């Protein structure tokens, strides 16, 4: 059967065709592509270097575990996961393996995220020579048989989610002090947990809602000091400008807005920053 013809493209529309055609022909400059190439290379080099050191530290921990278990009487050797590391393959993860953290450093991570890859991959057992000691994922822990003894690797994500929800509902009811207390507790307990970026942002929000503007600004400063994507930095700076403006400190607000604009903002955000600057000028 002959396939139906494809609909006529909008670029041929007499009224808006030109606009669509021009937008479609918008090209990326070589400079921009080269810049991104450079950044990707740097990030990947850091990643592969991190993988190597992680594997080395796992080697050390594993050896210690074996030694201790032998001292205790060799009764629990079977419970230890020991797999030799193939150094030349450190950068290569076996297919289907979830041992190495492959999550991107996304600021707004969510526990119910879909995997980043679109298509499921065939389940295959990784070659033993390629395996490194597995880092337990929450899913894996959940799938474990109930009779298995609880290890220290048990996922804390459900607990984190419960706490986070509690903090949110407290804040919604106006109890920002309690919400902040719960968030601080979470930050101490799970400093690198998957909800950490959300917690930091929520903290700023609750501090602002509670009228602790200085503390909110300090929290923004802390976030700015931590490694984060440029786009997020510029947004935080713009928010800092808003905070200063609300407090009537126009010189500090202007500085924050200018820094945000310097980092680069989306057109909408840039408009807001400029509008803030104008307000400062009026005052």
């Amino acid at each position, binding site marked *: 059967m002959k396939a139906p013809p*494809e*609909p006529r*493209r*909008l*670029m041929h*529309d007499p*009224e*808006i065709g030109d*606009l*669509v055609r*021009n*937008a*479609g022909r*918008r*090209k*990326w400059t*070589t400079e921009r592509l*080269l*810049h*991104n190439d450079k950044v*990707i*290379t740097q*990030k990947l*080099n850091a*990643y592969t270097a991190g993988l190597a050191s992680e594997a080395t530290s796992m080697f050390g921990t594993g050896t210690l575990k074996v030694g201790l278990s032998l001292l205790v009487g060799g009764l629990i050797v079977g419970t230890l996961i020991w797999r030799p590391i193939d150094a030349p393959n450190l950068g*290569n993860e076996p*297919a*289907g393996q979830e041992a*190495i953290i*492959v999550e*991107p450093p*996304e*600021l*707004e*991570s969510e526990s119910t995220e*879909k*995997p*980043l*890859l*679109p*298509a499921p*991959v065939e389940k295959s057992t990784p070659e033993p020579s390629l395996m490194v000691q597995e880092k337990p994922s929450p899913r894996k822990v959940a799938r474990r048989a109930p009779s298995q003894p609880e290890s220290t690797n048990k996922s804390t994500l459900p607990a984190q989610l419960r706490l986070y929800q509690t903090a949110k509902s407290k804040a919604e009811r106006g109890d920002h002090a309690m919400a902040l207390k719960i968030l601080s507790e979470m930050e101490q307990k799970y400093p690198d947990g998957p909800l950490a970026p*959300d917690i930091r942002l929520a903290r700023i*929000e609750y501090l*602002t*809602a509670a009228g602790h503007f200085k503390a909110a600004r300090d929290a923004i400063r802390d976030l700015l000091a931590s490694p984060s994507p*440029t*786009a997020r930095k510029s947004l935080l700076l713009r928010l800092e400008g*808003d*905070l200063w*403006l*609300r407090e009537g400190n126009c010189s500090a607000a202007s500085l924050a807005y200018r820094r945000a604009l310097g980092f*680069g903002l*989306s*057109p909408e955000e*840039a*408009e*807001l920053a*400029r509008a803030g600057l104008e*307000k400062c000028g009026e005052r």
Partner: protein
Amino acid sequence: MAMSLAMPLASTMAELDVGALYHDHGAFVGRIIERLVGLGPHVDDLLQETFIVAFKQRKKFDPERAAPTTWLYGIASNLCRRHLRGRQRFDLFKNRLQAEPLDNPNLPPDVVLEKDEAAWMVFQALSKLPLKQREVFALYELEELDGPTIAEMIGIPVGTVWTRLHHARRKFEKHLKTRLAQEVSV
């Protein structure tokens, strides 16, 4: 264009040369991200992230199952979805923070002029579409891909591509024509 990415990583990339992938498809992925999430510095962050994830997951790529563009598009669109979810959270916070709106409709003329007016209007109209419609619209109308290719990239039947495109075009045209009419009346 000489790409440095392929060089330092060549030894660790037996399965897939991510540097070569970037060389061949970096601009395409960048444009797609731009169209899905709108203009801004976050586009570069997302482009970089796409290729970092591609590198980390390179062993999972099966050239017999999908074209590299399809695979990269899947990664990029998932990252864009995440980004948009994160931005919703950020916008919510921002709205609460602002006791008084900072939007100023009377922007100075230089601000208006510095935008690429035409592209800006198209991006504004695009941003009004739901993401599912936006991706089909961007791939068909702006990237000029055909229906079956889009269906394969997104993982939906071709019929669904046309349905989404139909709705997307209706909304897009309506929004853009309204904007144009406003421009003329001003």
